[in-house]
């Protein structure tokens, strides 16, 4: 395997640097698009380990500064929650 195939960008979903760079080479330079295609940023860590690497790769590929690249959207809940717990709380109806 090549070095890029052995380099993990997203530990939660086992996405490699090769997969990320291949997508960028195909023209995907929007973090949220890459997130939907690869699940980068959608695992238990919600992007805490991979975001900085993804932003830097996008910056190198597009020539834009990291500050000019749109970050991924964060939405609740930040960790997994059993539906049962939500339905129990919903009974309170407040």
């Amino acid at each position, binding site marked *: 395997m090549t*070095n890029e195939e052995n380099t*993990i960008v997203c*530990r939660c979903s086992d996405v490699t640097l090769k997969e990320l760079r291949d997508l960028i080479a195909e023209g995907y330079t929007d973090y949220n698009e890459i997130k939907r295609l690869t699940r980068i940023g959608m695992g238990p860590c*919600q992007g805490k380990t991979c975001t900085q690497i993804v932003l830097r790769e996008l910056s190198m590929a597009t020539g834009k500064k990291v500050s000019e690249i749109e970050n991924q959207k964060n939405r*609740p809940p930040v960790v997994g*929650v059993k539906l049962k717990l939500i339905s129990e709380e919903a009974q309170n109806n*407040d």
Partner: protein
Amino acid sequence: MIQTQLAIIGGGPAGLCAAISAAESGSKVLLIERNDTLGGQLVKQTHMFFGSEKQYASTRGIDIAKILLDKLEEHKDNITIMKDTTVLGIYEDGVITAMRDEDKYMKIKPEALIVATGASEKFLAFPNNDLPGIYGAGAVQTLMNVHGVKPGNKVLMVGAGNIGLIVSYQLMQAGVKVEAIIDAAPKIGGYLVHASKIRRMGVPIYTSYTVKEAIGSDALEKAIIWKLDEAWKPIAGSEISFDVDVMCVSVGLTPLNELLVMSGCEMQYIPELSGIVPMRNENYQTTVPHIFTAGDSCGVEEASSAMVEGYLAGLCASDHIGNRHPMYEEKKADFINQLEGLRSGPEAAHIRSGVEKSLRR
């Protein structure tokens, strides 16, 4: 739904000080902490702090945590502590949701909120970076200093900032051999006093070096580094190999900002503050008026400044909901003055620049 005057997310140095300060102002506080202990990273810090007397200089981090917990206890009538509780979301109607012990989901409606969630560690992309034995510096500190477990026998430390230098020293104290410390930057990032201590103990520090690859079948066996040229490009033929079973990655922290991002407050990438941070005024109030912030979540700095920011945010968030401390102006001026002092040296030039960029007047 749980009602409270002030909810504080995070029981590290910033959150603890925010809770103490808010309680002193007369606010009813709900302090929410994800872990089963309060104190955040302070409890892993066995070394003495710098700063000045007001931020407990010359006291070990773990002892500072005890001092703060004692102060918290003095205000127990005004502070409710909720441990093992993860805040899951911040919604536009001001409600926050949280989960306790993975078996209770709840809604909380505070009048004001302080987000003091701290920072997370940065990670590096190099071949075989998922081999067992490759740790973040925070994990190594948790293993050694909280659980008393040696992470391995021979370590390559990646990063010569203060955390990398201090953790290297702590590893040596625990009887672990530190083979070398490397840093991609051309100079050591941490304080010279820490670096000198480690050099005197015979550990080499390689600047302008980065990790080329990790090697091992089931776990880390070898780490290869190589030199970077002036344009930060690796130089072929400059490789050095280390037989190590641990690589400790200490390449900096980035603000833990996901709750702030979803709250809708204005955020900006500010490299001097190590990531995407909320815009805020001198009261540490974000652009969402009832949401305040303090500590590393609004810019990575030191624990000493996180504590002062916490005191300031607790004071100002209380004032925002009508609980003005009788000595509000004096206290505020003192905290601002302390922060300026902590950020005054040449080492803090980048912090001053970052703070200036994050200020909304």
